[in-house]
């Protein structure tokens, strides 16, 4: 009975939405803004990856808001789960492969992460994706050695300074008389690593922050003593 209700509900909702959405023109979006951005983005931001120029330039404040959400979620999770850094009893010590593999993977992951972050304005990828990899790099030792503590002070330093430097870069533009978060220092060398002015810096901040945030979250989830 329950499943039937669910089926009816889901089916009804889906069908209704579908009947509306089928009126849309699939594959030929109006793209008013998208078209406009595509034509000027490389010149205005110096990034070949237009998604990056949207994320950090045209919609920079969205990204700032998103970083704040992540920060808020991490802080709230910290608040909920408390600060007790007891070693995890639920996770068992990793085996040989995990331990040594983890140790070996750590520099590799760090390199990949930073590479993805720094090439975010040129190729797919960027701060979020790189940040996740950084988080994985930070978290891996924890998985391998439950006894090892993640350095929380370090982590919160990184997240604090990364987040605030994102804002600071924006504020510098404001102080220069430009608008908040206006891209600066754009070189006329499209396609090069240094072409996009402040964008890679912003992405670095994003990546570090995301990495630190997620690593903190994961360690919170993994570390706190289970009371159940």
């Amino acid at each position: 009975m329950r499943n039937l209700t669910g089926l009816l509900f889901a089916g009804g909702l889906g069908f209704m939405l579908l009947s509306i959405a089928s009126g849309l023109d699939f594959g030929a979006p109006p793209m008013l803004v998208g078209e406009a951005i595509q034509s000027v983005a490389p010149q205005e931001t110096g990034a070949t990856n237009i998604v990056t120029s949207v994320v950090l330039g045209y919609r920079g404040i969205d990204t700032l808001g998103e970083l704040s959400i992540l920060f808020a979620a991490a802080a709230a999770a910290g608040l909920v789960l408390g600060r007790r850094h007891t070693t995890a009893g639920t996770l068992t010590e990793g085996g040989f492969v995990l331990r040594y593999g983890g140790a070996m993977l750590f520099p590799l992951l760090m390199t990949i992460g930073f590479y993805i972050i720094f090439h975010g304005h040129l190729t797919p990828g960027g701060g979020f994706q790189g940040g996740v990899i950084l988080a994985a790099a930070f978290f891996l030792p924890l998985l391998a050695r439950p006894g090892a503590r993640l350095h929380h002070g370090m982590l919160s330093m990184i997240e604090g300074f990364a987040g605030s430097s994102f804002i600071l870069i924006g504020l510098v533009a404001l102080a220069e008389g430009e608008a908040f978060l206006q891209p600066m220092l754009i070189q006329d060398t499209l396609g090069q690593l240094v072409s996009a002015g402040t964008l890679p810096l912003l992405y670095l901040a994003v990546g570090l922050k995301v990495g630190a945030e997620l690593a903190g979250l994961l360690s919170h989830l993994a570390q706190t003593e289970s009371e159940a």
Partner: protein
Amino acid sequence: MTEIELWIAALLSLTVLSAAVLVLLVKNHIAAVAAASVVSLGLALLFVLMRAPDVAMTEAAIGAGLSSLILALALRRLGLWQIDGVKSRQNLIKAINGVERDA
């Protein structure tokens, strides 16, 4: 999208949708989390087809990877980490007590 891509997309859609239904229907929570990560993975592939490599990367890294990791860690903490469903002996106790309705 070429026609072949469309067919691939259709196949992926089917996978994603059935995985989504599975998430809700399977009894075992680990299986549910796994199914959820299949949904994410399928979506990531769909995003590639839809010419959204950035999104695909993010979905794969965050949706399929990180999110599943979080859920899995949470499962441990929640005491729902039971690979073979509910153990028969505990099942009996639950039936007697009528208390535990989690699994």
